[in-house]
């Protein structure tokens, strides 16, 4: 997280830590974790923890370990051999089904999915929260969770960011309506934050609560503007996948 600040896990209890590759996910119920497709591109059995602010190895023993049962990458996600040269992050969304239900508590609880009504469309200027253990201005990775609040901006803004990677042609990047551009100068998500939730307050409710409007997906340069997967476009796929793969209830 660029431009962020230390956060407690109680601020983002849906935050799921992916150890390798370092990334994040969003707990959306007892059995499912939502994350970015590119996080799971090379692994089928991710190592995940919830309920911990620190990801120091010794402290992870106190966290709740999650065991994946199955991984569902969005069918429209295009696999590529070299992730370093990827320019198409369209449909960067995936689901991890867990073997056992996650026990909820003050440090672990899910984030809501967006509704399908237009109230859940985010617009430039809307502020959302990002969090993760990814790169900061000073460190490649951090031990303790960090968070930041970033505004949504137009997708064009993200297009205009100057590309750092010399092996990629800027015009090759694919921008679609499945993406949200957000950020402001110096405040952004970065490597290692992938898959984490871009959380917004549910509109028109008395008790504040958050839903996952986006997932940290990609960006040309950390600390500028980042691109997030627009989750609202995938609610149907998420619900369908969960419904079709929910086994017999254990309770």
């Amino acid at each position: 997280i660029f431009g962020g600040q230390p956060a407690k896990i109680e601020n983002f209890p849906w935050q799921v830590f992916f150890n390798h590759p370092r990334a994040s996910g969003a707990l959306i119920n007892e059995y499912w974790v939502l994350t970015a497709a590119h996080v799971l591109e090379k692994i089928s059995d991710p190592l995940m923890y919830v309920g911990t602010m620190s990801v120091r190895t010794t402290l992870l023993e106190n966290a709740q370990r999650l065991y994946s049962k199955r991984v569902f990458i969005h069918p429209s996600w295009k696999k590529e051999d070299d992730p370093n040269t990827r320019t198409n992050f369209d449909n960067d969304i995936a689901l991890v089904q867990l073997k056992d239900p996650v026990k909820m508590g003050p440090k672990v609880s899910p984030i809501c999915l967006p509704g399908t009504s237009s109230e859940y469309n985010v617009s430039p200027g809307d502020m959302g929260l990002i969090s993760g253990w990814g790169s900061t201005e000073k460190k490649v990775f951090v031990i303790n969770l960090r968070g930041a609040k970033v505004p949504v901006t137009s997708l064009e803004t993200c297009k205009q960011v100057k590309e750092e990677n010399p092996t990629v042609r800027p015009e090759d990047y694919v921008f679609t309506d499945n993406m949200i551009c957000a950020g402001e100068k110096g405040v952004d998500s970065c490597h290692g934050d992938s898959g984490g939730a871009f959380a917004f307050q549910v509109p028109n409710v008395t008790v504040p609560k958050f839903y996952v409007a986006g997932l940290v997906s990609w960006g040309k340069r950390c600390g500028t503007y980042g691109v997030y997967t627009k989750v609202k476009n995938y609610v149907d796929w998420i619900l369908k996948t969960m419904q079709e793969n929910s086994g017999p209830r254990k309770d």
Partner: protein
Amino acid sequence: EPTMHGEILSPNYPQAYPNDVVKSWDIEVPEGFGIHLYFTHVDIEPSESCAYDSVQIISGGIEEGRLCGQKTSKSPNSPIIEEFQFPYNKLQVVFTSDFSNEERFTGFAAYYTAIDINECTDFTDVPCSHFCNNFIGGYFCSCPPEYFLHDDMRNCGVNCSGDVFTALIGEISSPNYPNPYPENSRCEYQIQLQEGFQVVVTMQREDFDVEPADSEGNCPDSLTFASKNQQFGPYCGNGFPGPLTIRTQSNTLGIVFQTDLMGQKKGWKLRYHGDPISCAKKITANSTWEPDKAKYVFKDVVKITCVDGFEVVEGHVSSTSYYSTCQSDGQWSNSGLKCQPVYCGIPDPIANGKVEEPENSVFGTVVHYTCEEPYYYMEHEEGGEYRCAANGRWVNDQLGIELPRCIPACGVPTEPFQVHQR
């Protein structure tokens, strides 16, 4: 050994008997004979009441005579001085002399013979209930026509037992009724109706005349009824003293009419009929009877159905109804079964929630499930209340028997993220 005759002589007879002598003779003649004892010579020291020397005649422990002094025959044609006749076959004669006889006494000479006794007339007690026939050495009893001699060979009675009445209606009377009933008899009758009927006896008060009770209330002649479980009587007297209608609650009834030797009266006459055994309608809690009738009789079957929420448990099997049959003894079968509240058991636990433990888990009990708030909430509002239903399951108005689900509350962090960035 019993002998038919014999001689008894005092010691040294006809010489003087010695002093200080006590001698006895036990005389026995065959059964059925008496004893004739007579003395032909008596010369024993005289004294007042024969206190010094004497000869005693003892029968059955009782002194029948005591002789002393010098006696002579009262009849010149007979040698007999004294004689005794006893209707018993045993006798004891005892001679006693004291220590001082100043004169010479020769004692006595006596003889006994077995004599026939008339058992029919010689005794106060009559040996036969009816006819007594004496013969030498014994007697035998005989009975009038239609009487028979009992095994005791002394008493005659009437053969009046053995009648078994199986018709559903009938009349029974004492022998010879209304003429005097026979003495010394025991008449046993049986009424045996088919199962499911009880014997009902009806008696007109004036149809009963039996020798009345003695001063101690004992009936010398009596009429007694005995069913399986109870006895009625014994009854006696002029006019029936018992209930005029006797419901026996049994399909069999024994009647015993016992008479003694004395005081024959008119006797009795009764009517009986078979009444279908009825079973009282029982009040069985929490159930209904089908068919619902005012009166149930033998072999009637009712279906007893428990009302909602109640069940019958037999072993490990429960059901909502059972059958009961009116039995021949007036009792219902399966009377031990009862409709008891349905038991739902302990409510199942749920994940991420709990349920209060009910005091009991019977029909109508309400329990509430709750979720571990604020991290979980119940998927269906108002879905926490479950009631123990008639089918033995915990039922919720909305979910039925499905258990409530506690699902995680989403999007609510325990602590809000305070943004300090500019």
